[in-house]
């Protein structure tokens, strides 16, 4: 039983396309996140939602739009994909915003050609 699951695991697409990555957690956590891991393995937070409400929105292009239909799901939609968007995107969840202990999904490797 995967606690935090993301789909798809791999995504190869052309520049200019629009794509989505889905994330679901079955841990009953209140907070979910999207992190981007670049080719140098550097992890940077992109968004955080607590009970379906956006609480962190780091400096990312507005081509990236998160959507949280309920507190168990946090999807990431990316418009007009660019070469620099190629990365591994990790979804994560935590019990709340205070402890900081995150549970990660297996990642979605996005390659933009």
């Amino acid at each position: 039983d995967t606690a935090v699951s993301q789909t798809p695991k791999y995504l190869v697409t052309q520049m200019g396309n629009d794509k989505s990555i889905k994330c679901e957690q079955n841990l009953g956590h209140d907070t979910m996140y999207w992190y981007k891991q670049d080719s140098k393995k550097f992890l940077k937070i992109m968004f955080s939602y607590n009970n379906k409400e956006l609480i962190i929105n780091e400096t990312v292009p507005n081509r990236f739009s998160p959507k949280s239909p309920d507190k168990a799901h946090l999807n990431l939609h990316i418009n007009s994909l660019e070469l620099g968007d190629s990365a591994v995107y990790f979804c994560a969840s935590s019990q709340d915003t205070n402890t900081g202990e995150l549970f990660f999904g297996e990642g979605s490797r996005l390659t933009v050609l």
Partner: protein
Amino acid sequence: AQSVSQHNHHVILSEAASLELGCNYSYGGTVNLFWYVQYPGQHLQLLLKYFSGDPLVKGIKGFEAEFIKSKFSFNLRKPSVQWSDTAEYFCAVAGGGADGLTFGKGTHLIIQP
């Protein structure tokens, strides 16, 4: 804002050698501290965490870390490494509230058999 600095980007050791990975953080208040590990091609997993109490914390797979408040450090140690410890290691800090978890740039550890 909080920040995390990991001293070594690449470390190469032989099996049975002792390991210490440095981590320093910058934050003005109380923090929760973490070490995560990412095995090749996998997602991040929690190795250990410090919230309060005994500054020497033990994690999985024989790892431990010591929180030294005066030095703003949370170094990771293991007395005798194994080939299977080859992975990327991330130190992270959570200051609570809406800041989420801030990661260091990671240390790529290679254990040679």
